[in-house]
């Protein structure tokens, strides 16, 4: 039996006013195992702590019960004080006789009786407490950023600037992401490439940043501080160390008709290509699905023209395994498939385009050299209709139930820029609501209406039908006028909903990070931990967590970086010792605990156990990684055999408290 000391705090008159502290100390002194019991004015004071420390030494106490304020207030204080006296800090329990007793009861007899009962419960618990030691695990001082868009780049730069190594894994041939395709940024209208490309160069030149472009995460093992990640470096068929990015191969390649992804398929690239002029790394990549040499063995033009001798048709995918302390997910987004919406005629007419296609049409590096021309006939459009909420806020199976957040602003931008550059155009914007919260956002939108004369119409487009003369018949409602509008448009631009990148779902499984029903990553706490995933050591940056614009993305990227830095700066992680543990002898191997664990802290291994007949039989048993477990206890209740228990809140401890309270 533990030798227990009880310390009853007066908290001035906060407790002593409605609880007879002398009686409490006296009554608790009679409890089994209690060898010392006293009361004092302020237990949390220097003198109070000394009193506890002296008693621990003098009476050789094995457990301490402090009857005072809420453990949420001073449990840590008392644990530290006891640790200084040589007692394991987890042998301390606090009975809350202030917030949950003296402050809410007026009758002294009632308050005193309740305080005694709460004290008894704490004593009963301490009897079953075991000394716990917080484990430590080392931290690998390198971070992995998955995704090389603006979110991933900013996170990587911030971490690298703090002095830690960062690897960026990007599935495309270049970093830059969606922002590289955008023409201008709202609400300041500065050129996207002008602010983005220097950052791309910074990433490439930073001595702490290592870019794995054209690569994907293959698998993830380990846990916070100690992740081991396999990265698949896809074959480019070009030797990175030799290629100078001169681009001669991309001009000589005879396969010319491959839709150029960077320009949203509105012009063509060759089979060997560099996505765009400022690509980082600026290395050519052969598209194995279209290359004649790789498909049929006949061609080899690029190899002949390459002065550096960089072409290597025998290159294979390479798997690289690296260790990381933290992982940042920055997988970004894509626009949903607009072909599913028959009413908008996206599949029927070349002149119905998405907003991202519109960006390319107005970009100086785009297929038209920045002149706004109709994709069908290359003529100047005079009437342009923008349709917002195409698939956003839609509960049907084709759409997405959420607001994509960025469309209102970029549509205002598109409308405004069109009217500025081509004052002879009529521009209509159909909206359900215009949502412009943000610094200078609403002013921007109002400018489009008031200064630039964009026709904003409250209502939705119901039908877009191509006419024989090449115009588009747009049928829409104007709800404020109570009319149905019929517009002959030359160009229709759809602000499609955005959705998380398709690769995110598979990645979430590899990381055991949770996702919501829309495949956005879930944050550890929606308000207080918005850039952390519930899985320790995995952080979120950018649209993979939810729709957001560039400034928000950059802010979140910085926040994620600061969380990563806060983790990597530590040499060792101290683990919460109140974690689950599994009794192998009782474990059935049912995997129930593994399912309910929000952190992926539970893994299974097969071990051999001796049977009654002395033969050995293999059985799956659970084991808890104490560095990952956060101690919620969900697994303990799921376990049918009681193999899983929680240190510090064990089944027996809680039942002992119940017993003591009900005695």
């Amino acid at each position, binding site marked *: 039996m533990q030798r227990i000391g009880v310390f009853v705090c007066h908290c001035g008159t906060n407790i002593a006013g409605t609880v007879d502290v002398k009686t409490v100390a006296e009554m608790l002194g009679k409890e089994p195992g209690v060898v010392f019991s006293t009361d004092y004015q302020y237990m949390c004071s220097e003198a109070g702590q000394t009193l506890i420390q002296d008693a621990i030494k003098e009476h050789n106490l094995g457990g301490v019960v402090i009857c005072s304020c809420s453990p949420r207030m001073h449990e840590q204080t008392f644990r530290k004080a006891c640790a200084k006296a040589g007692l394991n800090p987890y042998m301390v329990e606090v009975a809350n006789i202030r917030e949950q007793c003296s402050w809410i009861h007026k009758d002294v007899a009632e308050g005193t009786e309740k305080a005694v009962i709460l004290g008894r419960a704490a004593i009963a618990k301490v009897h079953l407490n075991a000394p716990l030691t917080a484990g430590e695990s080392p931290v690998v001082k390198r971070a992995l950023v998955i995704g090389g868009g603006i979110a991933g780049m900013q996170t990587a730069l911030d971490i690298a600037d703090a002095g830690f190594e960062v690897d960026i894994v990007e599935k495309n041939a270049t970093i830059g992401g969606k922002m590289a395709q955008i023409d201008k940024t709202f609400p300041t209208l500065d050129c996207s490439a002008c602010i983005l490309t220097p950052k791309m160069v910074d990433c490439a030149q930073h001595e702490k940043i290592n870019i794995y472009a054209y690569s994907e995460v293959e698998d993830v093992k380990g846990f916070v501080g100690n992740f081991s990640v396999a990265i698949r470096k896809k074959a480019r068929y070009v030797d990175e160390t030799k290629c100078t990015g001169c681009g001669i191969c991309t001009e000589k390649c005879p396969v010319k008709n491959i839709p150029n992804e960077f320009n949203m398929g509105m012009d063509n690239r060759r089979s060997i290509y560099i996505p765009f002029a400022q690509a980082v790394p600026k290395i050519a990549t052969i598209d194995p699905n279209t290359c004649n040499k790789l498909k049929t063995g006949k061609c080899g033009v690029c190899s002949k023209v390459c002065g550096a001798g960089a072409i290597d048709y025998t290159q294979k995918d390479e798997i690289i395994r690296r260790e990381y302390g933290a992982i940042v997910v920055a997988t970004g987004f894509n626009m949903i498939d607009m072909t599913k919406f028959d009413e908008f005629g996206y599949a029927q007419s070349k002149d119905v385009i998405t907003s991202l296609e519109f960006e390319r049409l107005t970009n100086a590096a785009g297929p038209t050299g920045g002149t706004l021309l109709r994709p069908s006939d290359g003529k100047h459009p005079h009437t342009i209709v923008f349709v917002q*909420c195409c*698939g956003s806020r839609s509960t049907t199976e084709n759409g997405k139930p959420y607001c994509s957040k960025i469309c209102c602003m970029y549509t205002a931008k598109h409308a405004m820029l069109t009217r500025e550059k081509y004052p002879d155009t009529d521009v209509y914007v159909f909206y359900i609501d215009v949502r412009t919260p943000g610094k200078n956002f609403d002013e921007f939108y109002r400018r489009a209406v008031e200064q630039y004369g964009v026709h904003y119409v409250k209502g*939705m487009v119901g039908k877009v039908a191509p006419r024989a003369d090449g115009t588009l018949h747009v049928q829409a409602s104007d709800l404020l006028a109570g009319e*149905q509008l019929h517009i002959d448009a030359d160009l229709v631009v759809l602000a499609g909903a955005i959705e998380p990148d398709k690769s995110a779902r598979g990645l979430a499984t590899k990381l055991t990070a949770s996702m919501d029903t829309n495949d956005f990553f879930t944050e550890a706490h929606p308000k207080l931990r918005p850039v952390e995933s519930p899985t320790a050591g995995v952080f979120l940056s950018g649209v993979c967590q939810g729709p957001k614009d560039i400034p928000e993305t950059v802010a979140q990227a910085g926040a994620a970086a600061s969380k990563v830095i806060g983790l990597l700066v530590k040499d060792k992680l101290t683990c919460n010792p109140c974690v689950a543990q599994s009794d192998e002898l009782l474990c059935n191997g049912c995997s129930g605990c593994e399912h309910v664990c929000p952190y992926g802290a539970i893994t299974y291994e097969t071990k051999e156990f001796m049977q009654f007949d002395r033969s050995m039989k293999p059985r799956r048993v659970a084991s808890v990684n104490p560095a990952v477990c956060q101690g919620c206890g969900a697994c303990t209740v799921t376990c049918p055999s009681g193999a899983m228990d929680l240190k510090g809140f064990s089944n027996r401890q809680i039942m002992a408290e119940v017993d003591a309270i009900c005695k």
Partner: protein
Amino acid sequence: MKIDMNKRDSVIRMTGINPRTCMKCGKCSATCPSFDEMEYHPHQFISLVEAGRVDELMASESLYNCLACMACLERCPRGVEPAKFVEAVRNLKLREHGGNHLAPEAIPEMLDADLPQQAIVSAFRKYSK
């Protein structure tokens, strides 16, 4: 402006759809091919039903101008299905006309030897609920 919550509830019961899921985007009315013929447009059906102003709808010719082409139902991004509301209000109107127009007791008197069986059945379908 008469508000009749019972009628509102009947319409909601008949459609099985909560009109509050409408986000007032107007896509239904944008799609509607007989928009110009209708006094009340599809999106107004939803709003007026929600407000309990079913009587106004019942009095309107719009009930019969709706082609029941179901375009609004097909296009609605929130699954509100306005055509069902029009149909429900129409049914409410039809049922209002003093219940059954044909009672079984009255049949024998109307019968004559030449009357085909089918006519009776179809009369029942048309004139009784």
